[in-house]
């Protein structure tokens, strides 16, 4: 768990550069224009990267503890829906809470994060206290949260949001939020007791337990934080789109997990860094954007994404020094 940024993530950073350059080259060959130096493309990449990045930072911590979270996208959607209902401007046609209009932006922001934390807490509690493999409760949460998001406004979006709220998603604000979150959690994971315990639990839960760490409580905390970050992502997503839709954030958890794994987080726990995840998110963003840029069919994108996840996880396994072969 080195504290030096450069050497550990150097290889992933090179991959990022390589991918970007590949698309740049293809851009000139296929489209006759630059991929990177294109101001129209940047905002789109920004949003993709920021929202998934925020989720990915939470997921990274969960994976470091040896767990997984499949509910992030749905939780983000639910959080966004609920937050939006507290962020509506007066005079709108479809007020969710008749009396609650023009609330200060801090209110929906906190509400959104709180909803995410609640969902994360449930995930963590079930995982830690029953010993059930984490993909089951988070899978259940994925379905339930999505269901709740739809039910929240009977399948309708929540619209007519205040300017103060939508400002959270305007311009480069999402990226700034992402950067702050990344910096914050980089410090937390590398310099605080929380971070030390997270790595300990993931590396060897039994050893962590016998050395006095309350493993169960810590896992609940980590999942709660991840949920809170998903909630924040939902808020940003909603602010950017100036409305909350129950179907948003679909499959985002997959991107977040991919980004984390590409960035060096091991699915077997004990390893992973915020800096690596950030680069992983950028790589994913560049690839997604590159595909759109090259007008590659959306259908190919999905297949490619699945292959990328697979490749990333297999590479992670290989990194562990495990020998492959039919056993």
């Amino acid at each position, binding site marked *: 768990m080195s504290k030096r940024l450069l050497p550990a993530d150097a290889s992933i950073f090179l991959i990022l550069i390589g991918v970007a350059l590949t698309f740049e080259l293809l851009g000139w060959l296929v489209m006759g224009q630059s991929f990177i130096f294109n101001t129209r493309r940047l905002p789109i990449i920004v949003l993709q990267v920021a929202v998934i990045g925020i989720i990915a930072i939470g997921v990274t911590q969960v994976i470091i503890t040896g767990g997984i979270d499949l509910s992030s996208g749905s939780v983000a959607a639910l959080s966004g829906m609920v937050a939006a209902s507290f962020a509506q401007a007066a005079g709108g046609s479809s007020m969710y809470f008749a009396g609650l209009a023009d609330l200060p932006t801090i209110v929906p922001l906190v509400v959104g994060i709180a909803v995410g934390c609640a969902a994360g807490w449930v995930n963590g509690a079930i995982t830690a206290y029953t010993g059930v493999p984490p993909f*089951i409760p988070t899978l259940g949460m994925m379905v339930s949260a999505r269901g709740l998001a739809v039910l929240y406004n009977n399948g309708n979006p929540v619209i007519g949001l205040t300017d103060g709220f939508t400002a959270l998603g305007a311009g480069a604000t999402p990226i700034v939020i992402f950067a702050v979150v990344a910096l914050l959690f980089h410090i937390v994971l590398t310099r605080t007791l929380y971070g030390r315990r997270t790595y300990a639990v993931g590396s060897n839960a039994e050893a962590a337990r016998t050395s006095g760490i309350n493993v169960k409580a810590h896992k609940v905390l980590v999942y709660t934080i991840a949920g809170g970050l998903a909630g924040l992502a939902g808020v940003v997503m909603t602010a950017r789109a100036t409305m909350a839709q129950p179907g948003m954030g679909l499959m985002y958890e997959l991107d977040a997990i991919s980004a984390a794994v590409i960035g060096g987080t091991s699915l077997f726990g004990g390893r992973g860094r915020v800096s690596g995840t950030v680069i992983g998110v950028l790589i994913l963003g560049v690839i997604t954007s590159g595909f759109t840029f090259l007008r590659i069919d959306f259908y190919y994108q999905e297949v490619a994404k699945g292959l990328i996840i697979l490749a990333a996880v297999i590479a992670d396994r290989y990194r562990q020094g495990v020998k492959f072969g039919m056993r």
Partner: protein
Amino acid sequence: MSNITQNQSSPLPRETGIFLVLIGVALVFEAAGWMIHGQSFVFNTQRLYIIVLQMAIIGIMAVGLTQIIVMAGIDLSGGSVVAFAGLVAASLAQASSAGEAVYPSLTDLPIIVPLLIGLAIGAALGFVNGSIIAITGIPPFIATLAILVIARGLARWYTSGKQVSFFTPEFAVFGSGATPVWIFLGVVIVFHVLMTRTLYGRRTYAIGSNERAARMAGVNVGRHKVLVYSIAGLLYGLAAVIQTSRAETAQSGTGLMWELDAISAVVIGGTSLMGGIGRIPGTVIGVLILGVLTSGFTFLGINVFYIAIVKGVIVVAAVVADQYRHRNKRGK
């Protein structure tokens, strides 16, 4: 063998408990039906028929998943595989009278062709799942999650998102009337025998119970895993053909979340996610419980999305209950 014939401390069949749950759930809806609608829920042959018919397809998937989960694996790709296999099969089942056939020169084919192709696609994707898991050792949920995405992408790519319909009249045989139920029954019987009386079943339970012990005893674990996932894929292909035939169309959005229903049925039916424990009859009852729940909710006019939430809660509860039941299971 005790864990697959009966509970060693009770003379009753192992599925008694879960069967009582099924009866209980049905009775709850029966009571609610009288109170709310003034009519019976259970004593309605039309409804019972529909329940089984709708669940037959999920049931076939659940049989495949039972084997995987008993082996201590998991497969999240089922629904997407059904979608892709269904589309490919559909594209070979079209009648020449179809307006825009996918393959204009391949119309009016004998129905054995789309059937075999559907099975083959399913088996092939299952083979890929099993191979990745056996060779690289990455956790099954991630491997099959990736295949879920890839298969869904393939489904959308195959006809660029367009539906495929207008099949030959013969193709309807798979999905018409009660045929899906008979096929489901046949699958249940065949695989129950396979799991309880053959080497295949023995090895599946052994690997699920203690993979290391099985390996040390000489079982070719890798090869067996590939076999089990491939067979499950075959069953997804079968489900796909039946679904396509019955719906008279194939779409890229088919099967969304079906694997979750199938996994729920398996878990509710008593199969343990930890492996080594579980039976096909239990899965059948799990499938029925799920069917009764869905039908009951519709009967009472409850919003579909509440069903989704309830299902999510039930699965988690079933898994937690399973965890407690096997608290004292020795470490592998």
